[in-house]
């Protein structure tokens, strides 16, 4: 491509990108940073493996073997996981959820029925050749989510984000071991783990609420929400749903 064509390319890109900038970017970024900070606090504060290179070694020492029924929620039946993904699509009527990733189906089942849910993205990772991978075959690292769904409601009704983790934590946390709540964030509740039930903590910052469930075997669910009609009780229900955490068996 000669210089004239490259200039033409530049001109075309400039014209293609000539769009009005959406309002409120700074406000939304600050809200998003509060959410990231909260997640980081929870993950690091209780001894998360995070993205440490030695995660596999430590996890092997403290985590149950894959495929073994661990001391998590009871009543769920592990089924073979297939890699699934959905992106940018309206949620079909309830009878036609067959093609949605399992994580999306399970969460939608727990939500009040509406006809204006929209999937931003959803995926379920899977095991392939003894290794956990994303739907495109990329390997899953220790601290990355094994399944996730982001749902929106209507045109501008907020977002619900549900993430399921398989092996993040080394130690079983307790409410007392959680680090102090940072300025601008309010801890709504924290319940210590009991037999078969996870540690459950809820907090809010900048109009977004989060509920985190951490199971004794290291699996966890993070639910973040700013959809007004989804209350904290429903978030607790999602965070402790046995079928959801079973995705991270």
């Amino acid at each position, binding site marked *: 491509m000669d210089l004239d064509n490259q200039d033409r*390319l530049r001109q*075309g890109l400039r014209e293609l990108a000539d769009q009005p900038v959406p309002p409120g970017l700074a406000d939304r970024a600050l809200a998003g940073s509060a959410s990231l900070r909260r997640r980081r606090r929870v993950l690091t504060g209780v001894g998360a493996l995070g993205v440490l290179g030695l995660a596999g070694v430590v996890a092997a020492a403290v985590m149950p073997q894959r495929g073994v029924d661990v001391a998590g929620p009871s009543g769920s039946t592990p089924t073979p996981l297939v890699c699934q993904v959905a992106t940018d699509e309206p949620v079909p009527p309830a009878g036609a959820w067959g093609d949605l990733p399992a994580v999306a189906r399970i969460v939608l089942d727990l939500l009040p029925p509406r006809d204006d849910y929209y999937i931003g993205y959803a995926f379920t990772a899977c095991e392939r050749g003894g290794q956990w991978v994303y739907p*495109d075959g990329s390997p899953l690292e220790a601290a990355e989510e094994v399944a996730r769904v982001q749902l929106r409601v209507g045109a501008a009704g907020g977002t619900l984000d549900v993430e399921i983790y398989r092996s993040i934590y080394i130690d079983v946390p307790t409410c007392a071991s959680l680090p102090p709540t940072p300025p601008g964030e309010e801890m709504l509740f924290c319940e210590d783990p009991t037999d078969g039930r996870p540690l459950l903590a809820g907090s809010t910052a900048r109009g977004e609420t989060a509920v985190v469930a951490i199971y004794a075997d290291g699996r966890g669910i993070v639910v973040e929400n700013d959809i007004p009609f989804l209350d904290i009780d429903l978030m607790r229900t999602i965070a402790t749903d046995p079928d959801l955490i079973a995705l991270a068996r």
Partner: protein
Amino acid sequence: MNERAEREFREYVASRQAVLFRAALLLTGHREDAEDLLQAALSRLALHWENVAGSADAYVRKILYHQQVGRWRRRGREYAVEALPEPAAAPDPADQTSLRLTLAAVLRQLTPRQRAVLVLRFYEDLPEAQVAEILGCGVGTVRSMTSRTLARVRALAPELVATVAAS
């Protein structure tokens, strides 16, 4: 983030949001996706603002491009742009409209990494060394990726080259 830092962050976003949003738009090809991508990048910038304020542009660009190129984590696949950005304003002369449509169609068929190279080199007009730093690869790799991407553009849109040749 304290008050002063928040004020500085807001000033930064106000001054740079147009450039960053338009780059995100070219990367994703979809207005909502561009908003999501930029918001995620700015959120991370806000999280680390007090440490990176002096090099905010470089930091946010790096996040922006890596998040888009690594989009499989959110999207689950290497995907093509799903929708064309709408034309910005009043109808243009036919050749300009044609150029936009052709380019939009070409972008749809590039991989995220190819789009990143194209946007960094030909929209942001960054030198190869800076592109290499942002994408975390060598200058030679940027050079070969640019060459391959332009060849792909040529292959996908011979009419673009023909239009230019005729004009």
